[in-house]
């Protein structure tokens, strides 16, 4: 589904991604772990071109999305993204937050989008918040809404950029529960996280990144149970 070939990204002199190649299958749940500054988030943000890669290719459903001629808006409609800081739109109601993109991009009529939004809100237990504003919600509620907002576009793949890192500890669980539910539906998910428990439980594959490259990858059992690389061992010793 997504083929990444020798992806490179530099910010000025600083090379953050030093050639990453990966293949992600449909329905696969991939979790990226690694120390901060290792390039995990940059890798994820390159996948929907929030960061412009400096080199390499990203093939999404047969199309090279790094090609300047491609309509990136059309590609992004199929890639949901959830941010560390939620990034809900504070100037509109929850319902409008969710329905803005599907309606404006012509994916659905206003009525259909609102109906779907309410159903999705019900699934995450927030149907009573539809007419409220983001400022009235807790962090965990905001992040669940952000997931719903991305899902309402019917994406082929969901990208999660440290979705629980900005949350109070008691709210992490409610967001992870929603993500686990989502995983059960067969959604393709790529997730940058520090929640090792979640990685162990949900991931088909764990990628350990350090210093701009993928150092080690494998099933959770392989990476957490018997890490081969020294850097992976050191990292896991610190966080587990």
């Amino acid at each position, binding site marked *: 589904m997504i083929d990444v070939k020798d992806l490179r990204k530099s910010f000025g002199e600083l090379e953050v991604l030093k050639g990453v190649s990966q293949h992600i299958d449909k329905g696969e749940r991939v979790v990226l772990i690694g120390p901060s500054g290792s390039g995990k988030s940059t890798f994820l943000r390159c996948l929907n071109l*929030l960061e412009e890669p400096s080199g390499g290719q990203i093939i999404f459903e047969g199309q090279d999305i790094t090609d300047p001629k491609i309509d990136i808006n059309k590609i992004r409609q199929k890639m949901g993204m959830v941010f560390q800081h939620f990034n809900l739109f504070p100037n509109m109601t929850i319902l409008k937050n969710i329905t803005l*993109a599907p309606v404006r991009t012509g994916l659905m009529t206003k009525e259909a989008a609102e109906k779907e939004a309410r159903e999705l809100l019900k699934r995450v237990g927030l149907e009573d918040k539809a007419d409220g504003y983001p400022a009235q919600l807790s962090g965990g509620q905001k992040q669940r809404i952000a997931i719903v907002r991305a899902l309402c576009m019917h994406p082929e793949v969901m990208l999660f950029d440290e979705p629980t890192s900005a949350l109070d500890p008691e709210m992490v669980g409610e967001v992870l529960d929603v993500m686990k539910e989502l995983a059960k539906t067969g959604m393709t998910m790529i997730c940058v996280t520090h929640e090792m428990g979640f990685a162990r439980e949900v991931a088909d594959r764990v990628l350990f990144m350090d210093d701009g490259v993928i150092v080690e990858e494998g099933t959770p059992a392989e990476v957490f149970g018997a890490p081969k690389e020294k850097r992976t061992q050191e990292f896991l010793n610190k966080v587990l």
Partner: protein
Amino acid sequence: MEQFLAWKAMMAAGEPTNLWQQFYVLFYQAFIENERWLQYLNGVVTTLYVTVLALALGIILGVLVAVVRTAHDQQRAGHRNPVLGFFNGILKIYVTVIRGTPMMVQLMIMGLVIFASSRNFVMVGALTLGINSGAYTAEIIRGGLMSVDQGQMEAGRSLGLNYKDTMRFVIIPQAIKAILPALGNEFIVLLKDTSLISVIGGKELLYAARSVAARNYEPMYPYVGAAIVYLLLVMLFTWLLGIFERRLRASDRR
């Protein structure tokens, strides 16, 4: 009227007069004699008219400049639009020149050089003030657009919305709230700066005060009177802006 003429004659003849009589005579000749208050009133109307015209022109120019410059700065590397780059360059020169030269000099050049043959001093003044205000308003609006968290643009774009829709529905509504206090301030500055157009012959409030002062050989009453009128106008608009801002903030309450 008779009282005024009698006391005026006493003062002219050098006879002793008390403070009240002096005040009465000077005040009467500055504001009431020959219906001079009408001159001031016409001046205030012109002042407000110029302010509104200049503000409208300033906001139109400001929005235009701010949107072009922000769109230019937010282009993806490697996808730069040369037309946008060209206009951005021109607008940068506009902002630099206007902000880098005194308003009075701009008025002199516009009134006495570029539009030297025009007798419509008020319109030339309004045009100059509008062009001047546009450069400052542009920076106010650009600042407002930049003050919106970068994550908002990213969230909009990651949902597949295009740049224009994200600006229109997400960024601009949030920027307006940040812009309004500074824009209100710009309005007040503009109101006071209209007094400058008297130097090119615009018949606004200060012009009226000056001509009365010249006729009576008595500057204090007309000028202090004009100052009080400006002050009252500014106080009135500050009060109205305060109400407006409080109303906007009401939507922030939880």
